[in-house]
């Protein structure tokens, strides 16, 4: 089992679900891929298909009809799965709290493993969040 745990920790592939967000967390997430932060150093890759992912990164508050969609994406993810809520909106709905279209933060919809607060969180914080998520494996 040592090999499996090691390999899982060394190769977290990310699927990014951008919900009703202001885009900043999405940009900071992509920023983490670029030369300054280069998360490929840690084996982190951004994948286009949920079937390839180990870590679901959700940014933005979840709006009402985005919620079933998110739930379904979560169900389609192969086990073991980790979920990371990035940004104030994803963790608490932030400034959009109370709006008629917001269903709530991510943890109302699917179980969340790691919360990364901040508006937007810096790329360093996002990387730190991934590290904390991997520690749960």
């Amino acid at each position, binding site marked *: 089992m040592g090999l499996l745990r090691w390999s899982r920790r060394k190769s977290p592939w990310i699927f990014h679900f951008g919900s009703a967000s202001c885009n900043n967390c999405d940009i900071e997430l992509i920023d983490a891929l670029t030369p300054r932060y280069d998360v490929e150093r840690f084996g982190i890759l951004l994948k286009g298909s949920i079937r390839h992912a180990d870590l679901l990164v959700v940014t933005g508050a979840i709006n*009402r009809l985005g919620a079933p969609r998110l739930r379904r994406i979560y169900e389609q993810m192969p086990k073991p799965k980790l979920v990371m809520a990035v940004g104030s909106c994803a963790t608490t709905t932030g400034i959009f709290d109370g709006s*008629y279209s917001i269903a709530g933060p991510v943890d109302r919809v699917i179980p969340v493993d790691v919360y990364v607060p901040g508006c937007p969180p810096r790329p360093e914080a996002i990387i730190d969040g991934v590290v904390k998520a991997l520690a749960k494996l």
Partner: protein
Amino acid sequence: MELGKKEDVLAKVKDELKDKFEGHYAKGDHRLYLNVKKEAIRNCIRLLFESMKARLSTISAVDLGDRFEVVYHLTFDEFNLVVNVKCSTPKIEAKIDSVTGIVEGASWIEREIKDLFGIEFVGHPNPERLILPDEWPGDWTGGEYPLRKRR
């Protein structure tokens, strides 16, 4: 010169609309607010957009309690003037002529206003929902149109 242009615009609109024109006021040199009757809105937009080459920036709707005010913001880029054409429609049977036939870019804006305020744009070629879901309002208890004021 800019002031002259503003007055030119005003004179032309008055000329075209005659008794459908209800009044105006200006705020500074670059903002002109016109009140017109809602029957004349197509004429007014056609004049401003087609003959005078203004650009439709957007359309706003405002809930004034018993009626809606619809504000068409048109921009004259060459001489820095925003003409805000206002017309109002009663809340019961809120209807207004669509300007999409004249300005293609108005299509989305009108559909959005229809979704949010429930103002019907008569003659819109494609009056489908744009931004609200088909099963709206769902479990939303604030009435059918989210931006209408609740009484």
